[in-house]
Structure formats: C-alpha cells, structure tokens
C-alpha cells in the first residue's frame, strides 16, 4: 500500500496532474515497452505483449477534485472556484494547500458565538467562503499565491479500523495503484495503460487517449461511490465496503458492454472472487468516451468502493482493492486463453 499512500497524498487536481504523472512514470520505467505523454497530459504506458491477442486498454484517471484560486481580496484572503463536483457542505473547517509551492491555508467559518438563531440551518455557499493563508493583506498574499493556482485538500493517508484506508483522492488513485500493479504483473495480453487527465471535469483525457490507442477492448478502473452508511436506504447505497470490486452496469455516460460484463462475472465466479454490482446510475466515467471512440470499443468498469469520495477524506477497504486486482488478473488470463466478449 506504499504506492497508494504516495499517490493519495500527492496533489493532482484536474488540469494539474503533473506530479501524479511523474510518480507513476518513474515507477513504470522498467515495466514498459514504451511510455508516452500526449498533448493533454495523459500518461500512456504500453506493454506490447503477444500480437495474436486483442489490444486491451486499461484506464485510470490521475486527477482529483479540488479548488482553484479566482481572486485575492484586499484582506489577503483567497476566493476560489470548485474544480469538479464538491458538496459545499464539506468545505468549512478544512486545511488546504495552495499552488505549486503548496502554501498552507484554511477555510474557516463564522464562530458560533457570532451567529444569529437559525443560521446553522443554512448551508454556507462556496462563493461566500475564502481561503486564509495568514497573509496580512493582498500584497503579502501575492508573494506566494496567484489567481489560477490549484488548491488541494491537506489530508494524510492512514490505515484505520479493520483493514481500511483513509486518505484523499482514492477516486481515482485507487485505480491508478491497481493499474500500476497490473503493469508489474506477468501478462501476455497487449496492455495499453492510460493514466488519464481531466476525468473530473468531463472525461476529457480518456477521449483522446482511446483515439490514440485504438483498443480492441477496454477496462476502466475506478474509485467509486459507496454510501453503505446511516441515513441512506439500502437501494441508494451504490456499493458496500468489503463486498468486493464493483462492476458497473450503466451510468450517465455508458452501459457496460454485455460481453465484457459476462466475462468479468465468469472470471469472478470461477475463481471465487467476491464482487458486487454498482447499484447507482449517477455520475459517469472514462468508459463513456472510450466506448464511443472511433467505431466503438467494448468497455466495462471495475471499481473499488470508496466512502466519502469528493470530500477531503475518503475511506476504502484493502480487501476490495486486492480482490479487484485478482479479478483483473483472472480476466486477463481468460483473454489469453481465448475469451472474446
């Protein structure tokens, strides 16, 4: 899990994935036949494998949700815009880091002592919030930050409970870590790994990566919604922690390809690997643009359930991550043995 620790803590808000890319590129150097970075910043790691087997694209996105500085007030406080889908309600009382120098800052809120009755029933909107870096005025703030700077949550990776992990950006550094493991393993299938950019702002990286790779088949590895928590009815939970990797059925951008889905289910059942279906159709992922690339690509998604994604702190279970990897290996072996969707 050391790879995931490093990947979780490094900043990589959508549009600013360079630091994540460098970590992965260095780790992949000796495991690849070819490494490319395209115009958008996607990192393509290629293992050519056997020419008789179908070319498999496996994608995981490097970017995470975050904020961007939009304006510096006279007081030296920073106004910001959200990058990707963030619930305003998770932002007050948060520690953040600003810009490439990772300047520490805080999103505070009005003290309870100053509030009017009923104020706590009102949601504070993000355009009323600001980041305080402790600067005494605009001039001092401008010495270390500027509008356009990306902002990420300052969250430490940590193990907790029974085999669970806590950290930021498991969506989708969990997928990145799985893809790294897959590239290190012994496979014959031509493996075209795409560590994509800008997923959180509209699945932008995967679209061009898929065009470039021209795959026969595609898998997307995700850290997905999991709401097996109080106040959420069973049918609204999407996935549950500890029940294995989640197979997507449909979301706002694609249906899982029926043949690919059947193949994944068969691989799981024949190898007694626990799995579940993602029981929500909300959101979209890189499988959308990949499946529509060129004349169309059979694609499916294998996800690690992560509680509290798109907030400063998410929680996942190691066993789901590991069972996801087992499922991927089994599926790839089936392709080597002749499985076609």
């Amino acid at each position, binding site marked *: 899990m050391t790879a995931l620790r490093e990947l979780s803590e490094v900043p990589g808000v959508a549009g600013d994935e360079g630091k994540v890319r460098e970590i992965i590129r260095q780790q992949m150097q000796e495991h690849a036949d070819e490494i490319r970075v395209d115009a958008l910043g996607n990192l393509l790691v290629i293992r050519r494998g056997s020419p008789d087997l179908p070319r498999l694209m496996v994608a995981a996105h490097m970017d995470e949700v975050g904020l961007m500085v939009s304006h510096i007030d006279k007081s030296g406080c920073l106004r910001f815009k959200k990058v990707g889908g963030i*619930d305003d309600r998770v932002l007050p009382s948060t520690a953040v880091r600003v810009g490439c120098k990772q300047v520490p800052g805080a999103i505070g*809120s009005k003290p309870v002592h100053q509030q009017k009755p009923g104020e706590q029933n009102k949601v504070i909107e993000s355009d009323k919030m600001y980041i305080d870096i402790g600067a005494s005025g605009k001039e001092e703030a401008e010495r270390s930050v500027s509008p356009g700077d990306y902002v990420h949550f300052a969250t430490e990776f940590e193990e*907790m409970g029974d085999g669970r992990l806590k950290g930021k950006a498991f969506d989708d550094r969990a997928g990145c870590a799985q893809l790294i493991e897959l590239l290190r393993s012994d496979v014959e299938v031509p493996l075209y790994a795409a560590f994509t950019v800008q997923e959180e702002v509209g699945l932008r990286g995967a679209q061009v990566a898929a065009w470039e790779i021209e795959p026969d088949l595609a898998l997307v590895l995700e850290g997905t919604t999991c709401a097996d928590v109080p106040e959420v009815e069973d049918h609204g939970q999407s996935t549950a922690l500890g029940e294995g990797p989640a197979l997507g059925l449909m979301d706002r951008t694609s249906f899982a390809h029926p043949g690919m889905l059947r193949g994944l289910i068969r691989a799981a059942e024949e190898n007694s690997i626990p799995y579940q279906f993602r029981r929500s159709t909300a959101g979209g992922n890189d499988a959308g643009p990949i499946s529509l690339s060129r004349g169309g690509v059979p694609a499916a998604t294998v996800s690690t359930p992560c509680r509290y994604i798109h907030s400063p702190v998410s929680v996942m279970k190691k066993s789901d991550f590991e069972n996801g990897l087992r499922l991927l290996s089994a599926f790839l072996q089936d392709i080597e043995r002749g499985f076609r969707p």
Partner: protein
Amino acid sequence: MSELLETVTGRDFLREICTAAGVSGAEDSLGDLVEKRFAPFIDDARRDVMGNVIMRRRGSGADPPILMLAAHMDEIGLVVTEVDKRGFLRFAPIGGVDPRNLLAGEVEVLGEENLPGVIGVKPPHLISPDERTRAIKMEDMYIDVGLDEESARAKVQVGDPVAFRRETFALAGDRLAGKAMDDRAGVAALYAAAQKLASLRLEADVYFVATVQEEVGLRGAVTSTYDIMPDAGIAVDVTMASAPGIPSSIDAEIGKGPALTQGANIHPRMHRRLREISERERIPHQQEIEPGHSGTDAWSMQVTQSGVPTAVVSIPLRYMHTTVEMLSESDITNSGVLMAYFAASIDRGFLEGFYDSST
C-alpha cells in the same frame, strides 16, 4: 529551578498541547502534559477534584500577595451517544459546535484505546439538488471508525469523548492554524509568562492555572479560584478577531498584540495597570470592549468568595470553534510577557488600592 528538566520552545509547546486531546470533562492526560512542561518554571503543582492543574511560583515577599493567572485547557468536542448495528457511532456536541463544520472531518474517539475516525458524508453524485441546500443536522451524522458492530462495541462505549484531529500548521508570517487554539493559546501564554518570570524579581506568589470545563460553563475556574483565593486574577483567553464575513463591530486584529478587555468583568485598576505596563515595556496591545459577560474564566473568578479583582487578556483568533482556528504567535508571546511584568509589579501597596473608594 532544576536544570535537569527539559524545556521546549513556545511554538513546540503550543503545537504539542494543541494536537493533544482534552475535551471538556476529559482533560486528565492533557493536564499531565501541561504539568510536565511547566515543571522547570514552578515550585509546586497540584490537581484539584475537578482536574484543574494548579501550579505555583513562589514570590519573595514576606506576606506575598497572591496572583492567579488562568487559561482553560479544555476544548470543544463530541461524545458518543450510540454504537449502531453496523458499527457507526452517533454523537452529541460538547460545547458550542456548529454542525456545519463537521462533515468529512477527522476525529479521535477516546475510549479504551484511541481510535481514528471520520465523520461521513454522502458523495455529491448521490445527493439530490434539493438536498444540497439543506444543512445536515448533527443527529443525522455519524462517525466511521472502520469497524463492524462487534469490534466497535468492544472498543467504544457510549459516553466516550471524541476529539477533533488536526495537526497545527504554520501559515504566512508568524501565523498558525489548528484545533483547540481556544484556549491552548492561553495556556501557551501562561507558559511564556512562566518562562519570562524566571528572569524577573517577583514579590507575589503566582499561580498558573490550567482550568477545565470552561467550554461547558466556566466550571473549572469556580473551584480553582475558591481554592487559591487570590488577591487578584487574570484570565487569558482567545477573542474573536476580524475576518472577511465577520461583523465590523469585531475589530481586534490578529498580530497586533493582546486585546485588553474593558467592561464590568474587569476591575478598572487592573486594566489600567495592564495598559501602563504594556506602554512602559512597549508591548503592542489593542483595546476590546465587552460591557457584560466576558465569556471567560474571569466571569467565574470575579464572584468567588467575597469577590476578586479580575482582568482579561485576550488573544485575537479567527474561525473560533473550527479545526482551523488561526492566530499570530506574537500575540501569545506578548500576552505572556505582559502578564509576567504585571505579576512582577504586584505588591501589597497595589492590592490596598482595590479597597480605596477613590479608584
């Protein structure tokens, strides 16, 4: 004063006590830490039945006046009210907690062993547009400690206190942010005062008191003041500082020195002495007006037994009762130095003035 005892810098002391857990009513281990760090600068220490840490530095006077300097060491937090069927913990607040600051926050459940936990939140993908505009009530929130029901029940009891988690972090200039600055900043100011007093001539007996249960009703100050029965007392606590979105009536600013409070809770002679000493020693200071309840331990202190002349030294603080309470380190040091000089200035003559009708 023993040379063998370890001393730490003011900043290290502040970081150490802010990161430690000490929710109101559960300040014991924090009290041990405070007592250990103050040891090089005091003559004796004791704990009272409430858990107040009462530390004395003896003066040289034959019949020394008694001065009490108090800061509360407790912090706001939560308490476990239920362990549910899937191991999630329900909770209630201890002290003034705005539920809107809690979502996706990190906590530490203080049971048999301390467990890290997270206050959960639904992902935005699964939230309806209507839901987004509603603030979530505390009773609908839960703590996730990553355990199933059986393991959670084995490790967590209803009634276990829960502390917020946040490492103190440095910002621009000498500014710092973190949890529990309210009022560990005050405890750090006492530490700075104790350090400074080591080099000053002192007539009075000075009691440094780290009080408990301030956040739930200024309770520790009630028993500790009764016990010490000082001739004069100062509470050092944080005060609201100006920040964007805060009413302009709040005009204390971080980094501009301790705010010297004026109002019914402050004896005019005490205030005047503090102001004179600030000017004499060129300690930056500001004025704060609080006609009624000062919201500090001085409110309890003032009406102990037959009454105590009190003052309030305030450290300006932004984002009070969040996990990113922000202040300027110089305000802590200046508050400490001011209290040290004040203590060194106290003699019998000063005390007699309190009962002079011409004050």
